[in-house]
């Protein structure tokens, strides 16, 4: 007999192992400059969004210190109902009071952008999570069971992929009130049943034929056990990668829908641009004159989307050793 060989509780060891694999992953990740840049941008936006509550307070303390009336009754930095009465005409160009200017309704653009940031994150990540959970489970099950289940979900994926999802969302917007969460849910499901199942199924198929699956099966493991314990952990890195790429897609779709004014979202980057568009500031010469109405929001959308994309590509190289440079 061997006496107790494990001196620490199991969870502690697992935590350590997990930390270690994270560290080695980070070592690999660090070499990919673009991915590190992506991560940096994401962190920047996260902080940017999180400090939003401080922004009005700081501004008020600087510019409205001596105006007890305005300080108490109305909030010039509220992203939705804010209005700065001290400025003659709106939209106003960037100034010290409004670093990114104001929109035609007199709202502070920076405050709008900051306020939208966490919502973009929530939308993107929720949609991507839903996509990946659906895609992973369906992909793994299709690969493992094959047959009717496989055929059904693959044809469904074909249909979803062939169907223009933007058009579908437009039609849906007529019937459903597209709030942020509903939109995330719909975008998530649409891409979850779409191409991601194909990719993850292909990956799961390569796992399915490996002998450790047979080894588990011959020991008496149930189907669910094999799918969740053996197949999914092995395709999870790829799922995670697709999650990053899907965040991009979700934010993009939301921006498009908001721009078209089809989503019931009170404030987002897309809404900011839509505001500029609907008030006619995106036409003719005004597009250059009133650049602060659309450029900051546009830059934010582009930056955050590409950040997630770069992060995804960087992770892809780590997940898929064949892409790795020596």
């Amino acid at each position, binding site marked *: *007999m*061997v006496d*107790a*060989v*494990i*001196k620490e509780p*199991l969870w502690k*060891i697992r935590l350590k*192992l997990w930390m270690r694999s994270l560290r080695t992953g980070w070592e690999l990740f660090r070499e990919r400059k673009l991915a590190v840049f992506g991560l940096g941008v994401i962190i920047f936006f996260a902080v940017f969004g999180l400090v939003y509550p401080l922004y009005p307070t700081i501004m008020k303390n600087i510019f409205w210190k001596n105006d007890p009336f305005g300080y108490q009754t109305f909030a010039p930095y509220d992203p939705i109902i804010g209005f700065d009465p001290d400025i003659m005409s709106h939209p106003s160009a960037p100034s010290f009071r409004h670093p990114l200017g104001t929109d035609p309704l007199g709202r502070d653009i920076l405050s709008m952008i900051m306020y939208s940031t966490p919502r973009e994150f929530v939308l993107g990540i929720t949609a991507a999570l839903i996509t990946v959970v659906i895609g992973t489970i369906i992909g793994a099950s299709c690969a493992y069971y094959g047959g009717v289940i496989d055929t059904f979900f693959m044809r469904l994926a074909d249909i979803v992929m062939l169907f223009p999802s933007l058009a579908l969302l437009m039609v849906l917007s007529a019937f459903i009130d597209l709030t942020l969460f509903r939109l995330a849910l719909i975008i998530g499901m649409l891409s979850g049943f779409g191409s991601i199942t194909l990719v993850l199924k292909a990956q799961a198929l390569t796992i399915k034929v*490996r*002998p*450790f699956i*047979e*080894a*588990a*099966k*011959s*020991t*008496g*493991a*149930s189907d669910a*056990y094999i799918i969740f314990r*053996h197949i999914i*952990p*092995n395709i999870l890195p790829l799922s995670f990668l697709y999650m990053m790429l899907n965040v991009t897609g979700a934010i993009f779709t939301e921006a498009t829908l908001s721009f078209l004014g089809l989503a019931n979202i009170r404030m987002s980057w897309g809404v900011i641009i839509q505001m500029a568009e609907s008030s006619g500031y995106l036409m003719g010469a005004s597009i250059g004159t009133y650049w602060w109405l659309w450029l900051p929001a546009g830059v934010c959308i582009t930056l955050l989307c590409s950040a997630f994309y770069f992060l995804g590509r960087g992770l892809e190289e780590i997940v898929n050793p064949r892409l790795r440079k020596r």
Partner: protein
Amino acid sequence: MSNELVLKIEGLRKLFPAERRIFSRTKYFVHAVDDISIEIKRRESLALVGESGCGKTTTGKVLVGLEEPTDGRITVEQEDVTPLLYENESSARRYIERNYVERFSKMDDQQLKTLDGVDGIYAERFLKLSKDGTKFISEFLENRRVRVWQLRRRVQMIFQDPYESLNPRMTIFDIVSEPLNIHEIGNLKEREDRVAEMLASVGLTPPETFMFRFPHELSGGQRQRVAIARALILNPSFVVADEPTSMLDVSIRTGVMKLMMRLADEHNMSYLYITHDLAVARYMSNNIAVMYLGKIVETGPTEEVLQNPLHPYTKALLAAVPIPDPEQKRGEPNIKGSVPKPINPPKRCRFFDRCPYAVEYCEKNDHPKLVEVLPNHKVACYVVSGETK
């Protein structure tokens, strides 16, 4: 009880459809395993030897439930486990109907009482149920799920490739304790102790340095030891070892071979040792069965078969094995052509078109049955058994 039978295979057949048809019945089948019979006694090992594609691995996979048998009976420790190897219950029901109920119904009580072996056990049960076929079947299939599960505990498999048979994302502890986990044996503490003990006994000492590593951190030999530990942790009565040492380097291979023999002794268990290497088979088995195109062509005690091969195929196979001694000259393998695909093979000796001794008789008759030519040494060849004269 040293001569107790652990495994008995009778007339096992496994056909794979060679084509896929939707509306009509499949006409062409690959006869991967075609009517083979094997017996393994406790603590004895049988080597199943043959070239790639002869059906040796398929046989092993049927035994651990990775493939369904097409036909035949498999008995593990005096229990007919064939119904447990079918995926769905209706095939199992059909099997019992065909193999027991129909056969037993035709016999009278006296005849049923004279049956021996496994048949005897089931005949007795049949009589007890006053020859009620439906009752017999439902009793046979009682707790099928649970019994399938229990069967998996008794029969385990070691796979060829130690790099592929361990999940790269699991630690050694998770891999070895997986069978305990699946069979819900012991609590966490007990599992930890059991795994540590098992790792120590396969030579991975001290176990705590190995338990929380990942497979890619171990060498080939160490991985195969982990695979052995996983197979043995449930104390199986026999283990199907599918070329467990063919991917290992020579200097490490002997260690694994010796380990497997020692463990068989300690755990009172038998191996079905599947290999293409006759030299390894010599060291790992008491008995040997040489397979060619889904048939066993020669079987007997290992040393006897290797020193005195009778079947022309065994002779050729032995003559082709390189000898690690430059001074020893070996004979020329006397064989023609190459291995054909066993798709709907014609009704003649399977070895006919490659056999240097084949005569007309071999072509006119179906594949020969195994005949005991020397004590315990059976050969399936008309020429050797003298039937052609």
